[in-house]
């Protein structure tokens, strides 16, 4: 499992463009909103949490179709399945690697983005605290989705259609946490619900993804 993670991180460092593209997409997509809506600070501050969350959601999807796709194409997936690790552990390793190479950088990139969008200072901690389980949830759901569309034609198009609806609960609670903090209400209930989502996805998504990997290899 640790070796799998080391392998994934090394691969992602060598092909670093995937993570970098996700972060740049996140920043560029976020920068479009002030241009489209207008730079009025009050408007931007009001919708800033939503912008950050939606952009993070979309950016996290970008590297997903290569998550298993590259391994399935060159035959590495067969070898991973034969490595003696249960398929669910392989999926969990992949999800962890996805979070470390995409979720964590997005979390860091969300800070300058939130400041750029004039998010109220008191809402920033709630936004970031929400993004921690939020991005982890996205990595888990995304891994399951990526495993499911393996072998499907136009899997890259199918993947967002499959993952985005499932990510809606995280979006709702994540944005609600930051909004609540911005108006001086408690963000804690929303963050707890978000963490609960993540805790439920932690065992379920790798199991689903593992089963999907098995059937993709058949």
């Amino acid at each position, binding site marked *: 499992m640790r*070796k*799998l993670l080391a392998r994934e991180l*090394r*691969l992602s460092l*060598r092909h670093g463009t995937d993570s970098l593209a996700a972060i740049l997409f996140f920043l560029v997509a976020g920068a479009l909103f002030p241009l489209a809506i207008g730079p009025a600070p009050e408007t931007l501050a009001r919708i800033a949490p939503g912008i950050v969350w939606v952009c993070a959601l979309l950016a996290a999807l970008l590297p997903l179709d290569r998550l298993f796709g590259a391994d399935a194409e060159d035959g590495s997936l*067969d070898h991973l399945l*034969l*490595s003696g690790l249960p*398929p669910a552990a392989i999926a969990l390793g992949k999800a962890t690697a996805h979070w470390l190479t995409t979720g964590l950088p997005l979390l860091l990139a969300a800070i300058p983005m939130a400041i750029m969008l004039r998010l109220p200072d008191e809402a920033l901690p709630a936004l970031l605290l929400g993004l921690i389980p939020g991005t982890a949830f996205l990595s888990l759901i995304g891994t399951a989705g990526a495993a499911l569309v393996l072998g499907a034609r136009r899997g890259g198009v199918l993947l967002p259609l499959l993952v985005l609806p499932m990510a809606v609960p995280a979006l709702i609670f994540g944005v609600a946490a930051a909004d609540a903090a911005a108006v001086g209400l408690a963000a804690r209930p929303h963050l707890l619900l978000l963490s609960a989502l993540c805790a439920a996805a932690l065992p379920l998504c790798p199991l689903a993804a593992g089963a999907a990997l098995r059937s993709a290899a*058949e």
Partner: protein
Amino acid sequence: MGKGQEGMIVPQEGLQAEGLAAIRGERLVFSGLSFALPPGGALLLEGPNGSGKSTLLRVLAGLGRAEVGTLRWNGEDALSDRTTHATRVAYLGHQDAVKPGLTVAENLAFWGTPPEIETALARINLARLAPLPARMLSAGQKRRLALARLALATAPIWLLDEPTLGLDTTSVAALGTMLATHRASGGVVLAATHLPLPLPGAETLRLAA
């Protein structure tokens, strides 16, 4: 692993298949396929393209699914727990599973420790290329890298799909040495091939198209 199980069938060492059948797409690829391989045994799978050699190897690896039939390893049902079965199997597919962005040695890092990798690369004459990015390798060298992964395997069942494709004669000889060592230690080898393989005393299983 390797523990004989008392049952209706007399526990037998090695690998036995009984009445295996596989369906690919909607086509029955093969059916009623049986063989027995004692420790140290080798089986060559022959047959025209599309006769199901690769499908059979994937079934035996636990990657593909057998519709009917049983596979036993030392008398134990092998395919009931595919994750455990995976630890008994070393598989060389027709794809080399080489990551072009990693160096030759890094490509193997998941499968063994650095000293083991050095030995494995030396066995197939790749040690000199260890620090090179794998994208610089020729097709034959990539095949040798895939063989080095096989050399790292401690699994008793080797499943090889066209192992000598693109190899030069020196490398075929090196593969021959690897296969002989593996068989001498009680392992079994199943290979699908159209080319002559250095597997003395191997039995042949012909698959019809």
